[in-house]
């Protein structure tokens, strides 16, 4: 039987980050990826916040296949026939080191895996890890393609639907309220067209979030990210609402309706749809995390539930990269003592707790409850749009004072909820 020091399951951001760190420390590592190539099974929204992970692999980032650095953030509330946007531009976002980048998972991970291989790790594609070798609950290796490969430690980096963490007994059943479905279309446009339509210079990009009638009252949002030569346009829908509301509408029909909105049509006009994808996302933050370590096993990235909607920022990719690197660090320490027991590997959790990953997830631990509020996706965007319409429109009738219009709208039943919800959002 073959034996290696460490096996990483999944060549996504977390797995590749772990493998890169291990290989850099000359620790024997085998990466097993089930897709035809690294990235073949990855889907991103996607934007990566760069500053938290910048210092991890400084030698890599200059040549990474970033799509565009984000210089403008747009939040848009939509009602059936109107929308209200808040646009935030920041010249500082144009200074290096850039604050955040859009990436495309398949392109990025293909490149990242090359770097990992150059460091001396072995990456094998087209193999799914079918099982773990377990001995009294201790993980001793993997079963892949009918063969057994022994390892001192296995790092489960096999994504949100991680089967490895389940097989190791580290995570239980997934509940609908803790997850959302993301559906996305990639629409190809020339870089010049993108820059013209979005008022961007070369390499600059925007990120836009949409809330309101586009999800028909279901918990969720729309997103638009500009990549180098294409746009990522999609919807995120809470699985509980998707199941319970039973609106007799398929997720891809909602996406199509989104694409047909007057805010979107001129942006994608003439573009060619080149990919349609979907994946579930963890929405529960720290509460939904599985156990992160066991005898001979660690869990990193999405497999460990390290993704979260924090209201105005959607996080995940930087958590994946950082947790992969910290898992590798724990393995390095375990190897020094030649002790890969759960006790030794628990160092991983200690390292996480000192890092931004745990701190951010912990700070925003109440966010899922605050954001699971139907008013945020229905009444409030509607209220904002109605109020703007009344303030902006000059009709046949004499116009009322601004204060009369605003107080009339706010005196509705909604005012108290708005006050209460604003307070909860404030404290989130």
């Amino acid at each position: 039987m073959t034996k290696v020091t460490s096996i990483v399951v999944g060549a996504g951001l977390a797995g590749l980050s772990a493998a890169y760190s291990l290989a850099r420390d000359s620790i024997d590592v085998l990466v097993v990826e089930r897709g035809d190539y690294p990235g073949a099974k990855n889907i991103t929204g996607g934007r990566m916040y760069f500053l938290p992970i910048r210092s991890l692999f400084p030698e890599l980032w200059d040549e990474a296949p970033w799509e565009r650095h984000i210089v403008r953030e747009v939040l848009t509330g939509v009602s059936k026939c109107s929308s209200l946007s808040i646009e935030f531009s920041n010249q500082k976002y144009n200074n290096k080191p850039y604050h955040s980048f859009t990436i495309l998972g398949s392109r990025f991970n293909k490149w990242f895996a090359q770097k990992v291989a150059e460091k001396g790790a072995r990456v094998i594609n087209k193999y799914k890890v079918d099982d773990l070798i377990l001995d009294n609950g201790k993980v001793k290796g993997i079963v892949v393609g009918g063969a057994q490969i022994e390892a001192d430690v296995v790092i489960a980096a096999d994504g949100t639907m991680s089967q490895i963490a389940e097989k190791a007994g580290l995570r239980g059943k997934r509940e609908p309220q803790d997850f959302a479905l993301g559906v996305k279309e990639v629409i190809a446009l020339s870089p010049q067209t993108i820059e013209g339509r979005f008022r961007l210079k070369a390499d600059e990009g925007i990120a836009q979030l949409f809330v309101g009638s586009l999800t028909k009252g279901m918990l969720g949002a729309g997103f638009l990210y500009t990549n180098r030569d294409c746009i990522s346009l999609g919807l995120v829908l809470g699985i509980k609402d998707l199941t319970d509301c039973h609106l007799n509408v398929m997720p891809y029909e909602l996406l199509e309706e989104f694409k047909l909105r007057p805010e979107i049509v001129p942006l994608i006009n003439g573009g060619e749809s080149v990919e349609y994808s979907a994946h579930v996302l963890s929405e529960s933050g720290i509460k939904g995390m599985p156990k992160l370590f066991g005898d001979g096993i660690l869990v990193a990235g999405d497999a460990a539930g390290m993704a979260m909607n924090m209201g105005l920022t959607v996080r995940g990719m930087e958590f994946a990269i950082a947790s992969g690197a910290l898992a590798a660090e724990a393995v390095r320490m375990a190897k020094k003592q030649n002790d890969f027991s759960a006790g030794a590997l628990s160092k991983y959790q200690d390292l996480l707790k000192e890092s931004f990953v745990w701190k951010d997830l912990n700070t925003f631990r109440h966010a899922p409850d605050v954001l699971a509020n139907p008013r945020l996706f229905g009444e409030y965007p509607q209220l904002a749009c109605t109020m703007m319409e009344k303030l902006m429109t000059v009709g046949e009738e004499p116009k009322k004072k601004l204060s009369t219009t605003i107080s009339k709208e706010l005196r509705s039943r909604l005012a108290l909820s708005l006050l209460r919800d604003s307070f909860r959002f404030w404290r989130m």
Partner: protein
Amino acid sequence: MVEVNIKDKLALDTFKPAKESHLKLNQELCRGCKVRCCLFVCPARVYTMDEQSEIHIEFEACLECGTCLIACPHNAIQWNYPQGGFGVQFRYG
């Protein structure tokens, strides 16, 4: 509501279907199910119902997202990833 042919959307992607389905149903549980949310939560319309109210799986179109497994209230879906080197292969991601 706009009419969308899901086949047109899926035609944008590269699929390498395996011989055997990676998704299996416990039809007995499905027969007793009143919700049948698999029919409307799946973004690839993998699940359809015939005239005898039996649920069918078109596993070749699966985007491997995981929604059906999480949504199914009866744990009637035996969910797995396709065997290595098969299933959908994203070029952009």
